[in-house]
């Protein structure tokens, strides 16, 4: 009993009870009136106060705590046994101490008065306790307010008890008899309110059945003992006639209530299991709803799962075996160390197959030869699959230390719960995926935005040069990049590049690459030197698995000359006189090799331009575009289309290429960015210029063709 808060002894009502007990004792000891009626009335009033105060303080005591109905019934049983002994063995106890006490009950001695008083005090205590306990049971499981029924019954109890005092003649006895009968009827009605037994488990119902039959018998015996004309009856009458009736009424009420309880429980036994299952489902639903709220956090979720597993299966420890890559690791360990669970995991995985486990299975840990290594001696083990989409994602494990093996009930509990847990874990995964997907999409939006801003808004305009550029981003930003640098009125620099990797990181590198070429093009003209410098910078800034392929070119309009350097990028295609030539000077991708090595292998070609020369720059998004059979679009097909359309204006050529790529990869999603830049040399015809160009051309031609042949 909680001594500081709910102590019944400290309560105000209980003090009043003690005071009234004292007054009653004093009254019984010292006041003896010749007037039997007045004496009786005063005595009864004092008694009434005593019982009332005790009743109220006990009610308060009961309401303050949650009491299991079964333990309450057990208490009533014990008390009914006490009452039985008090009543049944009264005369033998009395005769032990006071030989002549029964000789003259109307004129008792001092000691026997005290003895009688204590005796009745006990009876008062016990019966009041029984009444309050029955009241508590009456209100158990009642949803609506039913005070009126119980209170009316109590009132009739009192009326029946007190009216006996005034029943001096037989003619008037009908009054108290009527009250008595009404009380009994009310008892019957109130005894029907025992719906709470429906919520007991089958086990509890069977216990209740046995207890109620014993208690019923005890109360029937007690009630008949107090009502009969025997020696105890005389003692009662000498103490208080009304109290005798009151006690009888309570005992009868108890007898009726418990017999009712017995029969109802008896009829409930066959359906008990169904009720059990329903109740189990209800509590599972509660657990399930608890799981739902935690799907946001996988760790928290799995910890709750193991926590609830312990509760539903009365296990000592629980954890989940989770498959990470190709390893089986224990997670969400509850009440067990990591090392222990890992040891037991090995045993489990020896005994059951990961994918083959379809239902909750029990294992005897006594068969585990390495059990001695585990710090606690677990005896029984239950393992249940956690499935998602029909695949086993994890195993839920529960272990017990004591000898009692897991039974069928535990199996059901674990199985049901692991089903719920599977759903929750699956949901958690799906949620995580969708959050991740959303995050990726946001990230890709940013990447695409960066790419859009980096790429030139429009093509530069130069006399003698037709320029067309097309860029089609892939869903995952592919890292393609191209730019033009208007160095002077007669010089145009251009670059096409492809950053390795995808997404936001590629987009950021793209931005860096743009900055590098933008600034280098202002101070250096030679494509070779620009690429060398760019490699130097990118070698420093890129991580060791990222690189950039690029082609940098410079067109000198005045001289009709183009210089090109290539760093690991797709070759440049030159369409001249119905022939497509692949211009592929040597060069390693940017950020791959150290400065000297890069320099050593980097070439620059000079192309003397002829009228209608068409220069095609592209990224592998075109040549590696795939159809549904995963065939590449390929350089051959690409060149064919270019040649077919070589006499068109550049925008038309671009259009045809993109059309062809789109048609080709119609049934396959675009995996990489597609970039296509086409330049066509349409020099303004001036005699001077043509002559100059003719002169320079002869040496240059050889140079780039050689380079192209080398590789």
């Amino acid at each position, binding site marked *: 009993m909680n001594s500081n808060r709910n102590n019944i002894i400290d309560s105000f009502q209980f003090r009043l009870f003690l005071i009234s007990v004292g007054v009653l004792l004093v009254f019984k000891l010292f006041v003896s009136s010749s007037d039997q009626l007045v004496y009786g009335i005063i005595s009864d009033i004092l008694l009434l106060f005593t019982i009332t105060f005790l009743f109220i303080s006990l009610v308060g005591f009961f309401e303050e705590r949650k009491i299991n109905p079964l333990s309450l019934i057990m208490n009533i049983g014990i008390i009914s046994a006490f009452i039985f002994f008090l009543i049944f063995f009264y005369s033998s106890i009395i005769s032990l101490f006071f030989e002549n006490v029964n000789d003259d009950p109307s004129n008792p001695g001092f000691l026997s008065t005290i003895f009688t008083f204590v005796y009745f005090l006990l009876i008062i205590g016990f019966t009041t306790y029984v009444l309050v306990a029955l009241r508590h049971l009456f209100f158990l499981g009642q949803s609506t307010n039913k005070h009126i029924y119980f209170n009316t019954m109590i009132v009739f109890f009192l009326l029946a008890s007190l009216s006996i005092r005034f029943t001096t003649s037989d003619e008037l006895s009908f009054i108290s008899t009527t009250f008595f009968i009404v009380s009994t009827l009310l008892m019957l009605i109130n005894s029907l309110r025992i719906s709470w037994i429906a919520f007991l488990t089958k086990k509890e119902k069977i216990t209740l059945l046995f207890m109620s039959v014993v208690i019923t018998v005890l109360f029937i015996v007690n009630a008949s003992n107090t009502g009969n004309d025997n020696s105890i009856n005389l003692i009662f009458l000498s103490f208080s006639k009304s109290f005798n009736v009151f006690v009888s009424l309570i005992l009868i009420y108890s007898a009726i209530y418990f017999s009712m309880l017995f029969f109802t429980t008896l009829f409930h036994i066959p359906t008990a299991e169904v009720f059990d299952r329903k109740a189990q489902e209800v509590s599972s639903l509660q657990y399930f709803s608890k799981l739902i709220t935690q799907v946001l956090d996988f760790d928290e979720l799995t910890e709750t799962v193991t926590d609830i597993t312990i509760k539903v299966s009365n296990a000592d420890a629980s954890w989940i075996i989770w498959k990470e890559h190709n390893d089986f690791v224990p997670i969400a360990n509850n009440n067990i160390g990591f090392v222990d669970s890992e040891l037991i995991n090995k045993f489990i995985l020896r005994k059951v197959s990961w994918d083959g486990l379809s239902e909750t299975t029990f294992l005897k840990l006594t068969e585990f030869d390495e059990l001695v290594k585990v710090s606690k001696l677990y005896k029984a083990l239950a393992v249940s699959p956690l499935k998602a989409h029909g695949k086993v994602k994890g195993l839920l494990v529960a272990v017990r230390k004591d000898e009692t093996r897991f039974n069928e009930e535990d199996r059901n509990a674990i199985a049901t719960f692991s089903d719920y847990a599977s759903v929750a874990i699956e949901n958690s995964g799906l949620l995580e995926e969708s959050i991740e997907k959303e995050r990726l999409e946001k990230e890709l939006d940013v990447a695409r935005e960066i790419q859009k801003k980096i790429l030139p808004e429009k093509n530069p305009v130069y006399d003698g040069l037709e320029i067309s550029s097309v860029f089609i981003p892939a869903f995952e930003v592919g*890292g393609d990049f191209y730019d033009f640098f208007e160095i002077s009125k007669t010089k145009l620099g251009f670059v096409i590049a*492809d*950053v*390795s*990797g*995808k997404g936001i990181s590629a987009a950021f590198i793209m931005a860096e690459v743009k900055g590098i070429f933008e600034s280098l093009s202002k101070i250096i003209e030679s494509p070779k030197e620009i690429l060398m410098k760019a490699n130097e910078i990118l070698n420093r800034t890129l*991580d*060791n*698995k*990222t*690189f950039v*392929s690029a082609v940098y070119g410079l067109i000198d309009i005045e001289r009709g000359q183009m210089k090109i350097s290539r*760093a*690991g*990028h*797709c*070759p440049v295609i030159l369409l001249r006189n119905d022939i497509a030539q692949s211009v592929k000077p*040597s*060069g*390693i*991708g940017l950020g*791959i*090799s150290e400065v000297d*090595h890069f320099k050593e*292998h980097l070439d620059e070609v000079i192309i003397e331009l002829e009228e209608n020369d068409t220069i095609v720059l592209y990224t*592998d998004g075109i040549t590696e575009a795939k159809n549904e059979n*995963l065939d*590449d679009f390929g350089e051959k097909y690409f060149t064919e289309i270019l040649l077919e359309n070589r006499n068109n204006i550049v925008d038309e050529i671009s259009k045809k290429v993109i059309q062809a790529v789109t048609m080709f990869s119609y049934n396959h999603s675009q*995996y*990489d960015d597609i970039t296509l830049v086409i330049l066509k040399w349409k020099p303004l015809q001036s005699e001077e210029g043509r002559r100059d160009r003719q002169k320079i051309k002869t040496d240059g031609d050889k140079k780039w063709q050689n380079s192209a042949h080398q*590789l």
Partner: protein
Amino acid sequence: MAEFSTSIINKGDVSVINLSGYLDAHTAPTLEDNFTDLIDQNKFKIVVNFNDLAYISSAGLGVFMAYIEKIRNNNGDIKLTNMNDKVFNIFDLLGFPLLYEIFKTDEEAVTKFNESSGVGSK
């Protein structure tokens, strides 16, 4: 995209990694794990067989770049074998043949390892 898998065979003190399927940004970590494991075991003589590799993306190429320095610093090397034309073309464009030794067969690569026990970095 499609599946990617690797398998490792030891030929003397040379480890041969066989690649199969599609090596791209999504599957690259598998190959990275292989390299990390071999390096952890102090196995620096590595041959990568491309016979069953259908496709390699730029991220896949990056894997080779990421480990080459460490491996060469430990007197090892990554040698590449059995490339089909398409895959070779991708390596070739980027200038990888200037950085890695590429052989037709595993045997040639293993022999090369045995001839010069310890190929220095370029």
